[in-house]
């Protein structure tokens, strides 16, 4: 217990930074993912091509390498300086956006074409076809995989620890490299793992709740 109460300040910043990366990355991934997902299902072939290229390129790059480009590579460009936290959020957001885009595309593809055709046949304009027929059905099948993407995002925030963002997984180095801080590496890491298990279980609980709420009854 000394590990926690002796380093309460460090745990505070670490958890804050982890949640910052998670939320910042999540918002960025959602915004970018919606744009890319829309591009991937759009009637414009060039937009589809760009979306596909982006998704295939980033999805097949290890997250560690994306971090490498942003956190270590960005300063080499000589652009205005940004903190590693901001760069980390950018990296994880851009990486996760590909997964968000794929989930959205898959969700829209689960809606049978006949649904939209029927909606058009009764004379609904595009806006109503989307808002009344297609999107409500797609939304239900998007919710569970989207939560899985966010659970993965939460676990991926640990990668930021390797790129000098002071978050949970970096706590071991911070505590053990400082003189006089209590706690062995094993203790620190077990508590870090425990925090992640709790957070992931919490998100899974939310996922199950939402899944039950919006289950498709056929």
């Amino acid at each position, binding site marked *: 217990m000394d590990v926690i109460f002796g380093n309460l300040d460090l745990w505070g910043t670490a958890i804050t930074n982890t949640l910052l990366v998670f939320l910042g990355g999540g918002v960025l991934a959602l915004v970018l993912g919606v744009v890319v997902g829309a591009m991937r299902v759009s009637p*414009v072939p060039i937009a589809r091509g760009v979306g596909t290229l982006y998704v295939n390129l980033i999805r097949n790059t*290890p997250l560690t390498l994306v971090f490498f480009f942003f956190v270590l590579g960005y300063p080499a460009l000589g652009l205005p300086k940004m903190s590693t936290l901001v760069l980390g959020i950018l990296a994880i957001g851009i990486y996760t956006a590909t997964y968000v885009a794929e989930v959205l595309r898959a969700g829209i593809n689960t809606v049978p074409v006949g649904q939209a055709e029927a909606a058009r046949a009764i004379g609904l304009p595009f806006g109503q076809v989307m808002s009344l027929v297609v999107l409500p059905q797609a939304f239900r099948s998007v919710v569970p995989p989207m939560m899985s993407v966010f659970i993965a995002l939460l676990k991926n925030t*640990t990668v930021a620890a390797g790129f000098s963002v002071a978050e949970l997984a970096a706590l071991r180095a911070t505590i053990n490299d400082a003189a006089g801080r209590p706690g062995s590496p094993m203790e620190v890491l077990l508590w870090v793992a425990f925090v992640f298990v709790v957070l992931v279980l919490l998100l899974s609980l939310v996922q199950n709740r939402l899944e039950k709420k919006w289950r498709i009854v056929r």
Partner: protein
Amino acid sequence: MTSVLYDVPGPKAILRNRVLAVVTLLAVGAIIAFIVYRLALSGQFSATKWGLFTYATIWEQILSALGKTLAAFGLAAVLSVALGFLLAIGRLSDHRWVRIPITTITELFRAVPVLVMMMLLYYGLPSVGVSMEPYAAVVIALVAYNGSVLAEALRAGIESLPRGQKEAGYAIGLRKSGVMRLILLPQAVRAMLPVIVSQLVVTMKDTALGFIITYPELLYLAKQLSSNVQFGRPLLQSAFVIGGIYIVMCLILSAVAKWLEGRMRRSPKRPGGPAATTTTIPVQPDDPRLHRDGTVTEVISVQGERS
């Protein structure tokens, strides 16, 4: 071409699509041009920075690092598939004393981030008196995580099979092991093959995490190369070269996954898939599909579910 989202375009829509295409091209072009401009401005295209990659010794180092990456990936892939089978079967066991601990272990392995697991093994274990090579830490962490994810995929595959399959197996006198080995697993593996291969892509990508716990794989080498003062610290250059290698390796694996998925989709009986919409293709008497995996039980059970 028509889809859920849009109809066959009319003259106005064609015009709008063309405008959108131009806008997309301009936006993407502007972003790429800006990046290239910054790269050129900060001297990233200079011959000295790229000169590092004209030496044979550097490529030998890259090859040996690639070998390290593939060694970690290969062992982790094989072992995680094995662990996946073990955990999936354990979780479906009829005995509570097997099922409950295995379920707990699976959920735990899935919830702990791979990197934290690697750190636990590499930095944590020495403080209780067990030291571990980075290689072992990378492989064990990857196996634990991917094994439990594969176990879940396999379990989902087994549970999605019609119940008649299992019952028919018992009815012809097979034991539990026989039903699992001869009837349930082959079908589940077949249905879940794309998921398994795409999980292997994840394993491949996650080997790059070894970089953080000083396993000398590709990305670690990239970091080392980038500290080369003689060549003007070619950080972005080595990231591009190493990144290219990763992308090619993962693309190959992804292509395998996509190919398998395509094959599955063409197969006439993929439960719940888009193939479920009935298309009438005249079946020839010697069609191999007739003998491959069609059973009357399944047809009946599917009908039972629909009603």
